[in-house]
């Protein structure tokens, strides 16, 4: 993260762009956008030293609504793009954002390997248990009995993906869950995630009011996790394997050092070329 000590204090508006989101009125992603902007304000990173990388989906539209650098990539590849950026430019603050389809279905492999690789960046998934952008198909986190998609008219019949348990098993260094409507809570999670070294993963339950209107009821179900964050893998494993998906807060804090690409420098190319001489 770049040093920002001498700069004048940046405000919420410094991080916001003037584009009007394409989202449906009431979409949870509006709140998540606000939380990201609040977190950046709290972090006081310079917009030009910050980048938000996303894939494809309603939620993946977020970069354009901020005033930092952004990359709206292709479906499922946000974490690979973000990893490349952070590895090549370790001085930047890098966030990745996207949806449950983007991150856990087509992007599932990068998710696991990003957790494992532990590059110092923060990944925020707006989980609405549906493919919003393509008009309402089941995602990996969709409950097996949900019959709202024409592709799976009898429900998927498949156990939902457990992002936090996978993140833990894969080696993420910071794992949290928030609820979109709790903008300050989510902002705090993001702030902590960015400050924590290594790969931070934050699942935000973010209702899709159009294809999953029943998700409005989430506000009655979510609760702060009744236990303190742990840094013990076995304890966290036990907890997250039994989790019902509605405990919010920081759920695991690891202490692995961030991965940094090998890069010594200082050698002249001509020196290197000598190895080819007869």
């Amino acid at each position, binding site marked *: 993260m770049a040093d920002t000590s001498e700069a004048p204090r940046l405000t919420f508006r410094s991080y916001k762009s003037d584009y009007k989101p394409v989202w449906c009125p009431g979409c949870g992603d509006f709140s998540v956008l606000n939380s990201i902007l609040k977190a950046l304000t709290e972090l006081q990173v310079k917009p030009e030293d910050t980048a938000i990388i996303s894939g494809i989906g309603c939620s993946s539209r977020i970069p354009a609504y901020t005033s930092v650098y*952004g990359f709206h990539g292709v479906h499922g590849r946000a974490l690979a793009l973000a990893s490349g950026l952070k*590895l090549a430019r370790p001085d930047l603050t890098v966030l990745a954002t996207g949806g449950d389809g983007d991150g856990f279905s087509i992007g599932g492999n990068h998710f696991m390997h990003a957790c494992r690789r532990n590059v110092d960046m923060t990944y925020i998934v707006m989980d609405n248990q549906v493919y919003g952008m393509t008009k309402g198909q089941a995602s990996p986190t969709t409950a097996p009995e949900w019959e709202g998609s024409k592709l799976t008219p009898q429900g998927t019949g498949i156990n939902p993906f457990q992002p936090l348990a996978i993140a833990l098993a894969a080696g993420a260094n910071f794992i949290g869950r928030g609820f979109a409507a709790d903008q300050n809570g989510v902002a705090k999670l993001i702030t902590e995630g960015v400050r924590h070294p290594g790969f931070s993963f934050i699942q935000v339950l973010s209702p899709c009011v159009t294809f999953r209107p029943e998700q409005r009821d989430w506000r009655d179900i979510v609760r702060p996790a009744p236990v303190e964050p742990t840094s013990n893998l076995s304890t966290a494993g036990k907890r997250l394997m039994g989790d019902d998906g509605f405990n919010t807060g920081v759920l695991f804090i690891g202490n692995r050092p961030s991965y940094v690409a090998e890069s010594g420098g200082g050698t002249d190319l001509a020196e290197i070329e000598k190895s080819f001489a007869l």
Partner: protein
Amino acid sequence: MTKNNTLTDTVSIALTGSGGAGVVTAGQMLVQAAANAGCYGLMVRSSGPQIRGGESAAYVRLGSDQVDNLGDAFDIMFAVDWLNVERFIAEIPLSENSLVICDAEAGDVPDVITATGAKIAALPLQKTAAETKGGRPNMVGLGILAALIGIADEAVEGTLEKVLGRKGSEAMASSRDCVHAGRELARDISQDGVTLQAQDNDAERWTITGNEMAGLGALRGGVRFVAAYPITPATEVLEWLAPNLAKVGGSLVQAEDELASINMAIGGSFGGIPSLTATSGPGLALMMESFGLALASETPVVIINVMRGGPSTGIPTKSEQSDLNIAVYGMHGDAPHITTAATSVSDCLFTTQWTVHLAEALQCPAIVLTDQSLGQTRAIVNKPADLAFIAKRETMAEGTENYRRYAVTASGVSPMSIPGMADGTYVADGLEHNPRGTPTSQAEDHSDQLDKRQRKLDTYDFGDHWAEILGDGETAIVTWGSCTGPAREACEQAAADGLDVKLISLRLLAPAQTDRFQEAIKGVKRMLVVEQTHSQQFYKYLRAHYDLPDDVKVFNQPGPLPVRPGLVHEQLKSWS
């Protein structure tokens, strides 16, 4: 392509044997020894299906000047034993002019060998080796071959020292003894026209593979970030780059797959660091979706694609030019981009470096095509000259107001801002966008951006590097990539018959250089297209983009066998 040498003064030697027989080591030493004697040469290795061990072969060609390719036939074949030799025999053209050296005790000479009419010299290889403690027949062979082709003892000694020095004096001594014993054995046999002329050679020469050349080209061009996934035969590009990138302050990351590696490279490039990945056919196929992202978001990135036999997993260890189609046409949507091809082992450096330069200058993704036969061939070459091509991206001027990342400019290139630059923040996007980068589905924005992305390539001056052009005449060979060497040699063979043939080898496959091509074939009446594919991909590519003369012949041959100069020459001869 290297200096135009006349290739009559080359020697071709095939070494074969079962796993552990050490024919590859012997071959390498032979090349090294020839180099010590002031000569040039190359070695291609071929192996059986086993992961380790199993039979293998080394194909060596030596010459007094640079050698770019294997020749028509082998002057000498040296067989330690006959294990599975039929697996290799199609790769080892022999004739009655060839000499086959084998072990007198290795059993009957296989029919496939005797059928060629080659002279057979059955010598006591194992027996001679056994006379020395730790002695091995491959070193006996090295001695025989060095003697036959006239490489002096000091040159061989130097090599033994370089290669075996570390292994201690015992290994050195036994190898030296075997070599000398080999020289003795060689007294009883002879082969015409294989004496290499030792040279006083002051040029700084390198021993290097095409894959290493490509890696070095990337480094010289300014690449400082590489993400990749291992795949045969591209892995050595990465293996060379990994430690050496770190030395110059760059880095290489092994990604989880090719989808990740191309995206990581795009991410690095978005961060302002010239970035690259290397792969082969299957991996290239996986990269194509995101190649389109680099293209639409105008983020430069280079893919080195080392071609192997296809389709699908195909023949991973053998060469073919059949990824031409995917490299030129394999993207969805209208996708103007850069595709280049290296014309020789040495040219892997030039072409890669140039391509990095082009990608950065045009903010456009690029594919460099090389192939297994260029990439995995180790050659003795003159040290390549330094080139002016370095990555230089047009970036946003400081203090720009109201920055538009995708501004519609006359050249089509829009100054790019790099994270860290104040006032330059923007969102790179693979959705169609307006000049500011905002997604749009308006016809006008779409055609503006399509035009601009095309214009970058149409108006850029690629200079003379688009092709290698040699000679003149009403007959022309048009070819590309690793067929260039054999085609050039065919031209020389034709010249000996009195036929002048112009050689045009395309280095720039996309964008097509229509005017330059038409200019180059002015006066050409007969055109022979030479390529290593089954479906004439190059010929169809040429038809699509260029007006060809009426009289066109196509010589296409799929992998895994290399295109031999003589076969190309046949085509020229049989024309009329």
